[in-house]
C-alpha cells in the first residue's frame, strides 16, 4: 500500500486563494472574459438588440458552420499544420448535395451520408500528401483550395441550384419541436437546457470530488461554485430566451454535441493526447511509438468530414447552392482557432478556446452588422482584433 501522504508526494493542497488561482489560469479564463466583455459592449451599443431571441437565434445559425469547422481546424493546427481548403470544400460539398437532390433526385439522408464521405475523401486526399509525402500542408491545401473552388464552379455550371426538400432545410432552419405543447413558449428548450446544466454540474462535482480524493490542485471551492453557478445561469437564461422565440435550432444541438465530443476527445482520449504530442515534438512522438504519419492523415480526414458537414449546413441555410458559397470561410475558421489561444507552431490549443474564438468573431460580425458598419471596416476591425488577441497571448506566455 502506498503510505506516503500527499505532502511527501509534494502535491500542493487546494489552499490557493481566488486571485492566485485566476492569475495562474488567466489564459483559460481571459478569452471567455473577453467574449463576455465584447457581448456586453454590443448589447449596450445596439440598445439590447444583440441578445433579443430572434438575433440570438440568428447568431447561432450564422456561426454554426464556423464553430463546427473550428473543431477540426483546432486538431489540424495543434498537429502543426494548417488547412486553407475548408472554404472551398464547403462550397463543393454544398454544390454536390444540391446536384444530388435537385438533379439526380436522391433523398436527403443518402445525400447527407454521401456528402460526408466525400468530405472525408477530400480530407484524405490532401492528408495523404501532407502525412506521407511530407509536402507542407500550406501548399497542399492551397492547391486544394484552388482545385475545389474550380470544381464547384464546374459542378454547378456557374449557376445557383435549389431549392431543397423541406427535410434537408430543417438541418439548418429547423427547431427542436416542443413535446410539451407550450403556446408561444418552448418548454422543451428550457427542459433541455436545464438537463444539460444538471449534467454538467453533476460531472464537474464528481470530477472535483475525485481530484480532492487524490490531492490534485483544484480551484478554490468558492470559485468552483461561482463558475458552475454562472455557467448554469447563462445556459438557462440563454435557453429561456430561445424558448420565448422558436426553441432550440437543430443545428445548435448538433453543434453542442460535437463540441462536447471534441472536448472529450482532446482532453481524455489517447488519440487526442497523441495529436498534442505530435504537434509539440514530432520526432519525440515518433520515437515514443506514435504513428505520426497516420495521425496526421486522420486529422485531415476529420477536417474534411467536418468541412463537408459545414457545407451541408450552409447550403441548407441558404436553401440553395451557389458557386460563391464558402468563400473566405477558411480565414474565419483559422482566425477563430488562433484567437482561442492555439499556437501557430503546434502542440498548444483547446477546443473551448476555438469555440470561444469563433463566437468572438461571430458576435463582432453580428454586432457590427446591426450597427450598420460596412463590410469594409468590419474586416479591418476583425483583422485588428485577431492581431491584438494573438499578441496578447504571446505576451502573456512570455511572462
Amino acid at each position: 500500500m502506498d503510505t506516503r501522504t500527499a505532502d511527501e508526494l509534494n502535491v500542493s493542497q487546494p489552499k490557493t486563494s481566488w486571485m492566485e488561482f485566476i492569475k495562474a489560469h488567466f489564459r483559460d479564463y481571459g478569452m471567455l472574459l473577453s467574449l463576455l466583455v465584447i457581448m456586453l459592449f454590443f448589447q449596450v451599443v445596439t440598445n439590447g438588440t444583440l441578445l433579443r431571441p430572434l438575433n440570438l437565434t440568428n447568431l447561432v445559425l450564422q456561426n454554426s458552420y464556423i464553430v463546427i469547422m473550428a473543431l477540426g481546424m483546432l486538431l489540424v493546427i495543434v498537429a502543426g499544420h494548417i488547412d486553407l481548403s475548408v472554404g472551398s470544400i464547403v462550397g463543393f460539398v454544398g454544390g454536390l448535395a444540391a446536384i444530388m437532390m435537385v438533379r439526380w433526385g436522391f433523398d436527403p439522408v443518402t445525400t447527407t451520408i454521401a456528402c460526408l464521405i466525400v468530405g472525408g475523401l477530400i480530407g484524405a486526399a490532401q492528408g495523404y500528401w501532407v502525412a506521407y509525402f511530407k509536402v507542407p500542408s500550406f501548399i497542399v491545401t492551397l492547391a486544394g483550395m484552388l482545385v475545389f473552388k474550380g470544381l464547384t464552379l464546374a459542378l454547378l455550371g456557374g449557376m445557383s441550384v435549389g431549392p431543397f426538400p423541406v427535410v434537408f432545410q430543417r438541418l439548418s432552419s429547423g427547431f427542436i419541436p416542443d413535446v410539451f405543447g407550450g403556446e408561444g413558449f418552448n418548454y422543451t428548450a428550457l427542459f433541455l437546457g436545464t438537463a444539460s446544466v444538471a449534467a454538467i454540474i453533476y460531472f464537474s462535482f464528481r470530477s472535483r470530488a475525485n481530484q480532492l480524493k487524490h490531492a490534485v490542485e483544484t480551484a478554490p471551492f468558492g470559485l468552483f461554485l461561482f463558475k458552475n453557478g454562472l455557467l448554469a445561469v447563462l445556459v438557462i437564461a440563454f435557453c429561456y430566451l430561445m424558448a420565448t422565440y422558436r426553441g432550440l435550432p437543430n443545428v445548435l444541438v448538433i453543434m453542442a454535441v460535437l463540441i462536447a465530443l471534441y472536448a472529450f476527445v482532446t482532453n481524455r482520449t489517447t488519440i487526442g493526447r497523441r495529436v498534442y504530442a505530435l504537434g509539440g515534438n514530432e520526432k519525440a512522438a515518433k520515437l515514443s511509438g506514435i504513428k505520426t504519419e497516420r495521425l496526421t492523415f486522420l486529422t485531415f480526414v476529420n477536417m474534411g468530414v467536418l468541412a463537408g458537414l459545414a457545407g451541408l449546413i450552409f447550403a441548407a441555410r441558404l436553401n440553395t447552392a451557389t458557386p460563391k458559397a464558402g468563400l473566405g470561410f477558411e480565414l474565419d475558421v483559422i482566425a477563430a482557432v488562433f484567437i482561442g489561444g492555439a499556437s501557430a507552431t503546434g502542440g498548444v490549443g483547446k477546443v473551448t478556446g476555438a469555440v470561444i474564438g469563433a463566437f468572438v468573431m461571430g458576435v463582432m460580425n453580428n454586432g457590427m452588422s446591426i450597427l450598420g458598419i460596412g463590410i469594409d471596416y468590419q474586416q479591418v476591425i476583425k483583422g485588428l482584433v485577431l492581431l491584438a488577441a494573438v499578441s496578447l497571448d504571446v505576451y502573456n506566455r512570455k511572462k
Partner: protein
Amino acid sequence: MNAILEMRGITKTFPGVKALDDVNITVQAGEIHALVGENGAGKSTLMKVLSGVYPHGSYSGSIVYEGEERRFKGIADSEALGIIIIHQELALVPLLSIAENIFLGNEQAKYGVIDWSLAFSRTKELLKVVGLNESPETLVTNLGVGKQQLVEIAKALSKKVKLLILDEPTASLNEKDSDALLNLLLQFKAQGISSILISHKLNEISKVADAITVLRDGGTVETLDCRAEAVSEDRIIRGMVGRTMEDRYPKREPKIGEIIFEVENWSAYHPIHTHVQVVKNVNLNIRRGEIVGVAGLMGAGRTEFAMSLFGRSFGQNISGRVMLHGRQIDVSTVEKAVSNRIAYATEDRKTYGLVLAEDVRKNVTLANLEGVSKRFVIDDIQELAVANDYRAKMRIRSPSVFQETVNLSGGNQQKVVLSKWLFSDPEILILDEPTRGIDVGAKYEIYTIINRLADAGKGVLMISSEMPELLGMCDRIYVMNEGSLIAEFSIAEASQEKIMHAIVKSGRR
C-alpha cells in the same frame, strides 16, 4: 601578473530567486580559468552578466576589465572589447557556408557590398589557426559537431578575441576532438589570449586549467590555483557538491543470468548517401541483469546502430535478426519494438526525447498511454498516480508533475525520459549517452537508477563517450569503430588504454 578581468560582488536576482550572490572571480591575463559547479550553480548566469546579456543595472557589483570598470549594455559592447562567448548550443546557421558564418554580422563589406575574395582569404587564415582543413565554402550543416565548434572558435578569432568564454565546449565531442580543442586553448594561451572554460569534464580541466573557480548555489566557494600544485578531481568535486564523493559510481553486486537479447548480423545504410554502410554486421548479446557498454569515438556509428535497431528510426536497407529469449522479434517500427519490450532513451533529450511544452505527467505516459487508459479513454487520476509515483521514485525535482518539462534542468529532464521508458516496462533498455550534460550529483542518481534496473533483471545497453563512466558502470564493454564492433572486453580486463588501443589499431587497418 595582472588581471584581465575582475568581477566583484556580483549579485543577480530573478523574481523569487537569487541566482548569483556576491560572486567574485579574477582571471589573470593569459590564463585558462576553469569555472565549475553543478547545473544551476550560476555559471551561465555569471557569464551572461559578463557578456552584457544582462545589462548593467540589472545586477549589482562591478566588472573591471583591462583595468577599467565596464558597464556593458549588450553583447555588442562586450564583443567590441574582445570578450567573446561560445555557447553550448552552437549559434551557427546550418545552411550558410563556413565563411558566411564566420563573418555573419561582421561582413567584410564596403558600403554594404561584400568583398568575397577578402572574406574567403581571411577565412582560410582563421581555419588554419584552428586547424580545420575545410573549404570556406563548405556548408556548416555538412560538418560534424567537432568541426562546427572549431568554426565557432574561428569566428571568435575573427573578432579579435582577448577573453574567450567557452560554455561546455566538449560536451558533444569525442575524446580526439576534445583533445584537439584543449590543445588549441593552450596554443591561444601561449599567444596571450585568456579563456574561461566552463565544463563538467573534470579530467579536461585538470589537464589545461591554471586556476579553477568553484560555484555552488549561486555563490563562490573557492578559487583553486593549479600552478602551484595539481588539483585532484576529487578535490574539485568536494568543492562543487560540498561533500566528498566517496565513489562516483554506486556499488552493485551483478547478478548476471542467461542471454536474453541477441542481435545478429545487423547492418544499415545511410539514409541519404545510400551506398555508405553505417552499421556493419554487428553481433552482440545481453544477459539478464547485465549492463553492457558500447564504447567508441563520436561518429563510430553507435547511435546509428541503436536507432536503426529501434523501429528503423535511422538508416535504410536495414538487415539482421533480433532475438529476445531466443525467439526472433519484429522491431521494424517503434511501436513493435516497444511492444516487444525494447526501449531506447535518446542522446538528444530535447529533440528526440521530450515534448518540451507538455508537463512531466504527459511525457511520462507518452510511450505507454494504454497503461493508463481503458478503451482509448485516459484515466486521468490513474495517470496522475503513475506520474507522481515516478516523480518520487526517480527524484524528479519539479514543483509538481504539472510542471512543463522545458523548465526542468538537464538531469531532471533525463529522469523524465527514463521514467517514460520505464513505464513502458521494457526488458531491454538502450541508453544513449544517459548522462550527457548532467552535473555530478544528478549523474550519481542516474547511475543508481541504471543499477536498479539491472538488479531487477533487465538488460541494459549503455552507449557512452565517457570511458570512465563505462568502466565504472558496465559488466562488459563492446568497442565500436566505423560501424563495426571491433573488440569486446569483460570489465575485469577492460581499461581506457586497451579500448583506445583497439580503436586506433582498427582505424589503421
